[in-house]
C-alpha cells in the first residue's frame, strides 16, 4: 500500500541526496517527493510517498531516523490528513475549444494562469484523484506540457504531528524513560 511520510530535515547541502540514496540502497521506491521550507528557519519538510507494507514502512522510518540530518519522521497514512498536489498543465486552446476548456476549469476549480492565441497554462491543486480526473478531461484537447509538485500532506487537527522533538510516532523520543 501507499504510505505518506512527513519528514523534517535540516536544511543542509546533500540532505535530499542522503534521503533519496537511502530509498535506493534499501530498494524502496519513491512514488512522490516534495521538499520545501517550513515555518522554522533551517528546517525543511519532505513529503514522501512510498509503496510498501506496514512492516516495511517501520524499517523505512527507522532508517530515516538513522540519518543524522533527519529530525522527525511521521507516517501520516493511518491518521486523518489533508494531501495536496499542484499541477501546471499547458494545453492546446483553439478558438473553438476555448470555452469548453474554461468550463472544465470552472468545474474543477482550477485557474488559467497564462493565455496565448493557441494555448492555456492551467494551475490546479487538489488531491491526486482530482488532478488525475482533470488531466483526463483535458487530454482530448492535446496536452503540450505538464509539471507536478508531488504530494504535500499534513495531519488534521490542532496539534503538530511533525514538530522536532514533538509527539511523533518515531524513535526519537524526547525523554529517555527509566523503569521505576
Amino acid at each position, binding site marked *: 500500500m501507499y504510505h505518506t511520510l512527513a519528514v523534517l530535515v*535540516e536544511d543542509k547541502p546533500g540532505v535530499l*541526496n542522503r534521503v533519496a540514496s537511502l530509498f535506493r*540502497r534499501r530498494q524502496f521506491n519513491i512514488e512522490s517527493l516534495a521538499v520545501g521550507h517550513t515555518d522554522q528557519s533551517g528546517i525543511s519538510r519532505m513529503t514522501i510517498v512510498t509503496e510498501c507494507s506496514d512492516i516495511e514502512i517501520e524499517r523505512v522510518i527507522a532508517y530515516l*531516523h538513522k540519518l543524522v540530518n533527519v*529530525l522527525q519522521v511521521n507516517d501520516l497514512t493511518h491518521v486523518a490528513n489533508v494531501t495536496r498536489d499542484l499541477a501546471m498543465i499547458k494545453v492546446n486552446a483553439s478558438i473553438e475549444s476555448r470555452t469548453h476548456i474554461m468550463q472544465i476549469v470552472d468545474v474543477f476549480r482550477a485557474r488559467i494562469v497564462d493565455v496565448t492565441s493557441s494555448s492555456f497554462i492551467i494551475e490546479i491543486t487538489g488531491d491526486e484523484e482530482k488532478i488525475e480526473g482533470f488531466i483526463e478531461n483535458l487530454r482530448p484537447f492535446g496536452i503540450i506540457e505538464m509539471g507536478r509538485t508531488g504530494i504535500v500532506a499534513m495531519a488534521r487537527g490542532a496539534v503538530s504531528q511533525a514538530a522536532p522533538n514533538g509527539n511523533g510516532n518515531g524513535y526519537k523520543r524526547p525523554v529517555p*524513560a527509566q*523503569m521505576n
Partner: protein
Amino acid sequence: MKINGAHIVWECLRKEGVKLVFGFPGGATLPIYDAMLDFPDIHHVLTRHEQGASHMADGFARAGGQVGVCMATSGPGATNLVTGIATAMMDSSPMVAITGQVVSKLIGYDAFQETDVTGITLPITKHNYLVTDVHELTEVIREAFYIARTGRPGPVLVDIAKDVQQTFIDWEYDNTPIHLRGYRPDLSPLPKDFQQAVDMINEAKRPVILAGQGVMLSGAMAELNEFANKTHTPVAMTLLGLGGFPASHPMNLGMMGMHGEAWVNNTIQESDLILAFGMRFDDRVTGNLKTYAVHAKKIHADIDPSEINKNVRVDQALIGDLRSTLLTLLKYVEPRDHAEWIDHITEMKGDSAVRDIMNLPDNNHLYAAHVINDLWRCTQGNALVVTDVGQHQMWSAQYYKQNNPGGFITSGGLGTMGFGLPAAIGAKFAKPEANVWAIVGDGGIQMTQAELSTAAQEGIKVNVAIINNGFLGMVRQWQEFFYEKRYAATPLKSPDFVKIAEAHGLTGLRVTQRSEIEAAIYKAEETEGTVVVDFRVEQEDSVYPMVPSGADLHAMIRRPMPNPIAETPEDTI
C-alpha cells in the same frame, strides 16, 4: 590565535585524545602533513596503501575501543579507503577518516585527483562531511568523533578542501557540548518494554542468549556474565561476539550459525526464548528465516532501532545501551534453574563436529585445525587474535577459544580479504603489551602483504600465521560442495613467504609437520620483530560443520569420517 585549517585539524585531533594516525600523504593533504610536524605528540604511521591505513585504524579501534583515525589524499587516496570504511561500517567500528579534497573553487570541475568522496562513501559511513569553509572545521571534526564513538559506533568521513587547510583564521577551541538535533544515541527502553521482557524471561523453560559484538561495544561483559548465571541461560555467540563471554565459562556454547557446532544451532532451534543481545540476526547466523527458531519467543536488545524486526520479527524490543538494559533486567529477573535444559544441551554436545578433526590420525598431514588448536594451547587462549577472511577465519573461530573481550578481531559483516595483517598491526598499536597473532590465508595476505613493510618500518611486532593451502580455500570449499569440484580460479601459486619476510628484514619460518607447530609458535613469539610463519596445511580440507547458504539452521553438512573416532583428549574440546 591565528592558525590555518591544517593546524586546526591537528589541534582538534589532540583535543580528542588522538595519539596515532594511520595514513598516506598526497597533493590535497600537503598542508595537513606539513602541520603534522608541529604536533610531535601525535604519531603518524605511514602505510603502503590507504586500504592498509583504514584497516589499521579499524583494528586499532576494535582492540582499544578508541576511535581509529586514518588519513588519505583526494581522489585515488580517498577511494582506496573505501573498502576499509565499508568494513568498519558493517562491523560498527568507530573510525574517523580524514581526506583532502581539491580546492573548493575547483570542486565539480573534474580537477586533478578530484573525486566525489562524500558521495561515494554516503552509504558506507555513519555520517560524512565536506568542509569548504574553515570556520566550520572545528565543529565538524568534533561532531565526527562524537558520532563515530556514540550510539552504534561507525565510521565518519571528513573531506577537507585544500584551501580550507591553507586559510588562516582567529581560532579558539570550542568546548560547548555537542548538540545534534537529529541524532539520538541515548535511547532507552520504556518501563512496559522491560516489564514484558522480564515476564518472558521468568516464564522461559529453554532460554538461550545470542551475544553479539554489542556486548563488547557497550562494555556489558560483566553484566552478561551475571545475567547468564542468575537466569541459568546458556550463551551462544556470533562471530564478532567471540570474546564477549569467556569461552571457559560453563554456560558458553561457542559460535552459532553457518560454521557453528550443530549442537549449538540445535540449541537455538529447540529453545523457547531467544535473548538477542547486541547482535543483528545476520543471514550467516540464522540460515533459512522461515524455519529459524520457530518455537522461540524473541527479545532483541540493541541500540539501533533499525535492527529491530529487520531480519527476524521479535516479540519484544529493548532499544538502548545494552549494559544499562542488562543492569535494569538484572534487578527484575528471578533466579532460575534450567538444569533439565542444560543437561539436554550437554547431551547434544557429545556430537561435536569441531572435535572430529582432532581425532584424525597423525598421518603426516598438517591440518589447519591442529595449527590453530596448538596456537590456542601454546598461548593459553590469551593471544590477541586477528584474522583475515576465509577458511582460516572459521577455523580460528572454532578452535581459538577466546576468553578476552576484544581478543578476537575479524571482518565479519563485509568479509574483507586483506583485513587481517593491517588490522593486526593496528591492534598491536592499541595494545602494545598484547601477544598479537594475525591468522591469515595465503590468498588474503597477498592483498595487503605490503603492510609487512609498514610493520618493519615501525619496528612493531605481530606474529603472522599463514594457513597456506594453495587455494582460495573457502571459495574452493563451496566449489567442492556446490559446483562439482570445478575449481575455477581458486588454485593459487604463492611466493615463498619465508623469503618475503626476509626481504622485509623480518623473520620467516616454515612448518610442514604437526610436530613442528609448537616450536615454531614459541620461536615466533621469542623472536624480535614481526615474524611470518608459513604453515603448509592440507590443501583440500574443508570447514565443518556447515549450514549451506539459505538452508535450515539444523541442516548441517558434516565431515565425512574415514576412520573410527578415537578418545578425545580433554584439552582439545
